């Protein structure tokens, strides 16, 4: 590679292969060091490490057992619901409002928990709409949201759409000739599933299951609000308890290690199989051949999609109804907009750099991981994509705090730190969005570029950028939205008086301003929708999404 660089008249910026390896490698290394420091500092303050005490404690065995149990159930349910939805979405391309349903499916992942939970309670709670309907139609039904029911319902609400979205992507990646053949053979129902769809879904399932498992495993506020009592306790709750209430640092560190081992082990299993764990939708919808189908099928699948859309929309409506009176100017209470707007400004100041940062980190890590594939060092940049999911934020935060404290001079640095951590937390999701398109660059184009001596910056600018523009917009939306809804990290470091939107919401709650908090929740929801729709406009797929070749890139580049 370096020889060919010598052929170019003057040195292309960033053309040395080190640019593709070192930044990603250093980022991965930095993250590992942070995690080790977080755990290490807890252990150092604590002194002794007593694994045996943890395992002999009935309480903790039960906590670990419950955590694994609810996460496993959530995975099974989320996938079971996602499969028929993804199949129906793949087939029913003309479903009215399909595009909005896609946006909704992206939204569920980034909704702040307290807002989503309040919506779910508004629908399924004791006074909820759904329960009221049930009382009408089916007296003595015995439905109660609180308990395992509620936990699973909420987890399916958060993760089902994510799973369906990723499966849809896999189904739409089925090569057109294969679909045409299936269509000509008149395959449908079970046979279509067996011969075409299952082989397409099989590779993404393990990674998907691991992702949903991890997200449910580390779930916290949902479990406590809807769990019904102390028997619903997850490891993350126990870590919080040990760290913030009992100041038992060794216990916290041990629990964090157990969590890392369980989730990390799972990811390692998935990773070892070398299967495609492209977890996030890349929005490159393929061409679909019409499929043979039974007369009743569109009705059935239409009904399924309507049901699923209602499942996603109704809680959002509950949030909207609750918050609307505050946001509408006709109410006689003092306007909430000055606070909302300034909090929105601060939130965006953190979220936009965090989104950009997460995209940059993800690209560097992917480049490095691709470059180092097969080398042992390749593990480091790969870790960046998984570690932030399984390290408890409290532990990560403690590590960062200890690492950066001497230089943590003023609040501006604090804001940047929050932005940095938010960015890091979003990296696993962003990587999944970018992975597919980045590695999907076809070999011919790359060879052609090699021959023409297009390297470094120009290779990126003319080859990758047009191809990655759309996925990057989606990745940016995810990174920004995840950071917008974040409460945990910012609360960890201590904000200087002025709140971001989620902090504002909690401050309003802490001061009994329940109605205003509902307004803030709705405002946050609207902001998230705006982020996704405005960025999806940038990333809307062009009519033809065939792999780009150099000749196709030229006109595109003009307005990029």
């Amino acid at each position, binding site marked *: 590679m370096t020889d060919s660089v010598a052929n170019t008249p003057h040195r292309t910026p960033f053309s040395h292969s080190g640019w593709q390896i070192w930044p990603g490698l250093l980022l991965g290394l930095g993250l590992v060091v942070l995690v080790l420091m977080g755990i290490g500092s807890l252990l150092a303050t604590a002194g002794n490490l007593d694994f045996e005490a943890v395992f002999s404690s009935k309480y903790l065995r039960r906590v670990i057992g419950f955590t694994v149990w609810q996460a496993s159930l959530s995975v099974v349910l989320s996938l079971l619901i996602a499969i028929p939805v993804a199949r129906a979405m793949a087939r029913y391309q003309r479903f009215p409002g399909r595009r909005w349903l896609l946006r909704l499916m992206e939204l569920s992942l980034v909704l702040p928990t307290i807002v989503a939970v309040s919506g779910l309670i508004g629908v399924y*709670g004791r006074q909820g709409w759904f329960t009221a309907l049930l009382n009408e139609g089916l007296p003595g039904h015995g439905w109660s949201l609180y308990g395992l029911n509620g936990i699973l319902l909420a987890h399916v609400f958060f993760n089902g759409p994510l799973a369906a979205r990723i499966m849809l992507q896999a189904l739409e990646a089925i090569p057109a000739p294969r679909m045409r053949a299936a269509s000509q053979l008149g395959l449908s129902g079970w046979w279509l599933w067996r011969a075409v769809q299952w082989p397409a879904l099989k590779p993404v399932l393990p990674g998907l299951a691991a992702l949903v498992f991890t997200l449910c495993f580390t779930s916290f506020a949902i479990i406590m*609000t809807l769990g019904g009592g102390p028997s619903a306790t997850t490891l993350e709750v126990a870590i*919080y308890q040990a760290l*913030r*209430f009992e100041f038992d640092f060794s216990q916290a560190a041990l629990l964090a290690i157990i969590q890392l081992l369980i989730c990390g082990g799972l990811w390692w299993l998935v990773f070892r199989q070398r299967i495609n764990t492209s977890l996030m939708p890349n929005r490159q919808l393929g061409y679909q051949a019409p499929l043979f189908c039974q007369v009743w099928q569109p009705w059935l699948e239409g009904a399924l999609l309507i049901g699923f859309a209602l499942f996603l929309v109704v809680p959002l409506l509950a949030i909207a109804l609750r918050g609307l009176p505050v946001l509408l100017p006709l109410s006689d209470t003092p306007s909430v907009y000055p*606070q909302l707007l300034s909090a929105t400004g601060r939130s965006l100041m953190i979220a936009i750099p965090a989104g950009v940062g997460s995209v940059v980190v993800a690209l560097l890590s992917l480049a490095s991981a691709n470059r180092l594939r097969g080398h042992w060092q390749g593990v480091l940049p790969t870790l960046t994509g998984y570690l932030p999911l399984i390290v408890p934020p409290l532990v990560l935060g403690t590590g960062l705090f200890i690492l950066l404290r001497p230089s943590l001079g003023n609040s501006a640095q604090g804001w940047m730190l929050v932005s940095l951590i938010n960015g890091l937390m979003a990296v696993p999701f962003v990587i999944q969005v970018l992975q597919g398109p980045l590695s999907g660059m076809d070999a011919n184009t790359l060879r052609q570029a090699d021959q023409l001596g297009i390297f470094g910056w120009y290779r990126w600018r003319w080859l990758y950028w047009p191809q990655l523009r759309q996925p990057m917009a989606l990745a940016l939306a995810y990174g920004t939205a995840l950071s917008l809804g974040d409460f945990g990290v910012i609360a960890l470091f201590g*904000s200087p008086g002025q*709140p971001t939107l989620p902090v504002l919401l909690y401050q309003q709650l802490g001061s009994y301003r*329940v109605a205003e908090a509902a307004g803030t929740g709705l405002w946050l929801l609207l902001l998230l929708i705006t982020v996704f729709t405005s960025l999806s406009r940038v990333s809307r797929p062009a009519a033809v999404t065939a792999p780009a070749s150099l000749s196709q890139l030229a006109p595109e580049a003009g307005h990029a």
Partner: protein
Amino acid sequence: MFSRVIPVALAAALPLFASANTLPELNVYTHPSFAAEWGPGPAVKEAFEAQCDCMVNYTVLDSGGDILQRLRLEGSSTPADVVLGLDTATMATARQTGLLAPHGKALEQLALPIEWTDSTFVPYDWGYFAFVYDTEQLPEPPRSLEALINAPDDLKIIIQDPRTSTPGLGLLLWMHSVFGDQAPEQWQKLSNKILATTQSWSDGYFSLFMNGEAPMILSYSTSPAYHMAIDKTDRYQAARFDEGHYLQVEVAAMVKTSDNQALASEFLDFMLTPAFQTHIPLKNVMYPAIDLGDELPNVFDRLIQPASTHYMAPEAVARERKQLVNEWLDALID
């Protein structure tokens, strides 16, 4: 599109990064309900700055536990001068860090239901834990803990988890003070009435109670004051329990390694003046730590008056908490 937005956002952010002042700064670690725009924090800052010729900076941490944890991580290099927002549950642990300095004050103006003799911590407000109920859903609330425990199971209550929440721990200590060794048994009887045990007071109040999910929630006896004075509604009231109520005292302390000892001490003095305390009743929705006389809002006259006060010394709480939480867990998990 975003390539254009980012520079603009950064430019807008720049003024925030600039800071230039030469006044001495008093760094106060506190929690959100104090520092929030509607909390007493902003008004207190203004009032103190007017008299001290200094700048008050709040660092807002999520809870009393976080304040303490931050202090421990920073050790003697902490920039904090004053910590404000600890309570009787965290006091003993905070004292053990050895990072706090004795206040050296007589504190004669204090008006608490108990006698205050602590040499490190200065109270700034107090309140009783109580069950707040919705009068529209529950016209006749139970009149004692015992009545609540023996009420029919279709009466649902929302409580907070003693492992993660201050009021949650308060209820645990309340039950322990009233029932002693019988407490686990009583918890078992209560368990069928507990609709949800939330992580924090906010989760329960916002997501559940105000959504009408249950007619009763563990809160403070002062909560109705806010609803009556600000929301102008008598709908939410606290139930007065015959066994008496458990007391929470919120405190502040000076940090030993502070460079601004004199200023920090002045702030603690200021804390017990009407200029600070008048903001407590409706902004922190707690009782002021001194007698405000006529300045106490009228709605406070309409709050319940507990027959007796339950209170465990901070050292006892620190010693017994883990044991009590474990008993609670054993009682509620079968």
